[in-house]
């Protein structure tokens, strides 16, 4: 075994606390300092010009890059095994930056139908304003993915662990299908985090995250990140390979090689949309990353215990957790998520005679003592939501069913509390009248 640090492959946990940060040469500060500044002083006029032309590495303005944000970016890139990363204001921003960097008007995206509701809205309505079209497919049907691909298709999109029923994306097969058509697969890896699954190892090209969730873990900061494997041949992509009118005819792929996509995402898309992460939020998210694998391990183990408990409970109609053998994607979960399929899942309350499912959900939620009723996931505190009475309350039962959100569906995000306390809380709320 080599004793040279430069050639050692350091483990995940080591990179979780060290990657992307070298203690400062002057101060020696051990924690990552917060560079709370909008702008950076140039050495001289020539260096300033060179920076604007991307001819030197350096900081100009924190909308484009910032040293604290860079630590967050490199750390996530290291954990995902990516060539690099661009941090964004939120998970939604990471997705939008990915699409706006990769696609040209008229292009199409084929996406899994099992996505976070906000992502579906972005794909359908916001992308339409850019003359981009999306086709949704049942992610478990490779035939549907294939049939939806047209000569205009420029990206495939899915979630490692999909909303709302915990569908597991067959990343390897879908990435291979994309590769055979010269199309990159974009994976939203929010629910798994790189602690449980690294989609690039299975062939995915671009990764997006809502760092708001498990990466931070503390529920204090919104943030997102976009990563590139650096392995995809973008020479067929005019957006990345052709001379860019927005950057005096620079050919990003030719000039920056496997950094081309990310350079374009930063120097053009982030610059022009302003969808950057603030250095303070980057600092907060870095604090979360330092304990990521520990939290994912414990929260996933607790989630399995809770799912098993609910599956055996008389007041529960069904549980959709891919960690259970009853889930249709259990085998895929074992393949792609050997550490368990995360800590977010949904279950259905058993219908009662003379009581609507929506009313039942309200009673259950209001009886809970430890689960926080709110619209987020991935906190160290356990969270609960009943979509039919909150996020989806304007939809009819029929419309709910179309979106795969049954009126009896309850979504849980399991935190770090004592798991016996969580079981106690769920039991008493299930029995509440």
């Amino acid at each position, binding site marked *: 075994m080599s004793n040279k640090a430069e050639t050692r492959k350091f483990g995940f946990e080591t990179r979780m606390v060290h990657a992307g940060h*070298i203690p400062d040469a002057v101060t020696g500060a051990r924690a990552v300092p917060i560079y709370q500044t909008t702008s950076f002083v140039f050495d001289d006029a020539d260096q300033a010009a060179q920076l604007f032309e991307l*001819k030197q590495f350096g900081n100009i303005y924190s909308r484009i890059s910032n*040293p604290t944000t860079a630590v967050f970016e*490199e750390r996530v890139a290291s954990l995902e095994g990516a060539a690099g990363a661009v941090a964004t204001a939120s998970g939604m921003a990471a997705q939008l930056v990915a699409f706006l960097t990769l696609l040209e008007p008229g292009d199409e995206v084929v996406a899994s139908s099992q996505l976070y509701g906000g992502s579906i809205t972005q794909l359908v309505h916001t992308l339409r304003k850019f003359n981009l079209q999306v086709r949704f497919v049942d992610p478990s049907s490779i035939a549907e993915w294939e049939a939806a691909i047209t000569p205009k298709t420029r990206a495939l999109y899915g979630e490692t662990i999909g909303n709302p029923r915990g569908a597991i994306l067959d990343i390897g097969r879908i990435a291979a299908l994309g590769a055979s058509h010269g199309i990159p697969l974009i994976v939203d890896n929010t629910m798994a985090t790189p602690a449980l699954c690294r989609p690039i190892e299975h062939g995915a090209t671009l990764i997006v995250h809502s760092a708001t969730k498990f990466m931070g873990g503390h529920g204090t900061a919104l943030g997102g990140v976009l990563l590139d494997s650096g392995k995809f041949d973008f020479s067929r992509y005019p957006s990345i390979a052709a001379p860019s009118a927005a950057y005096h005819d*620079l050919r990003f792929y030719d*000039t920056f090689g496997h950094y081309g996509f990310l350079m374009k995402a930063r120097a053009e898309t982030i610059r022009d949309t302003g969808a950057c992460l603030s250095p303070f939020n980057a600092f907060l998210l870095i604090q979360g990353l330092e304990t990521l694998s520990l939290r994912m391990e414990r929260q996933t183990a607790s989630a399995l215990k809770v799912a098993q408990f609910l599956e055996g409970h008389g007041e529960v109609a069904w549980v959709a957790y891919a960690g259970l053998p009853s889930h249709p994607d259990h085998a895929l979960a074992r393949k792609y998520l050997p550490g368990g399929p995360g800590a977010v899942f949904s279950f259905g309350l058993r219908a009662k005679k003379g009581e609507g499912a929506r009313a039942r959900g309200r009673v259950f939620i209001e009886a809970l003592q430890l689960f926080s009723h709110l619209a987020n996931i991935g906190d160290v505190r356990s969270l609960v939501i009943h979509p039919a009475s909150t996020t989806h309350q304007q939809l009819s039962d029929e419309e709910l069913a179309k979106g795969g959100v049954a009126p009896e569906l309850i979504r849980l995000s399991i935190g770090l509390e004592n798991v016996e306390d969580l079981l106690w809380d769920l039991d008493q709320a299930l029995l509440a009248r």
Partner: protein
Amino acid sequence: MTLNSALSAEHQRLYQDPHVIQRLLREARTIAVVGLSTDPQRASWFVANYLKKLGYRIIPVNPKADTIMEEKCYPSLAAIPEPVDIVDVFRPAADATAIARDAVAIGAKALWLQLKLVNLEAAEIASRAGLAVVMDRCVKIEHGRYQGRLHWGGMNTEIITARKARLA
């Protein structure tokens, strides 16, 4: 440092050795850039310009130009009238065999083939003659990696250390 290389693990060990790369960047003064473009938007121009701004002496090698970046341009390595430390190659991989022979003939200290350029025959010719060899790596990226500024662009430098940085 194994990200994004077409080389096998064994060849990475031989031709992408971080210690060799750091030593070359530290000790070299003169870099002959074979295939340096006259177009300021090409990768070769970005790399050579970056190195020149850092104080390296850049010697363009391109039979189709007289001067590039205000430096006299030579048609071949053999035509360069001064010692060369690194021969940095921006030509198709197949051309690297002949360039390696020329690099040996002029007594260069290292042969460096840029990103995506792999030519094992060229590597053997150069290393048998005692030249250091780097392949499928970019001089600018490697300089930025060890000097710390590549990191500012959010790139994965793969450097993991708890030791204090040295002043650049």
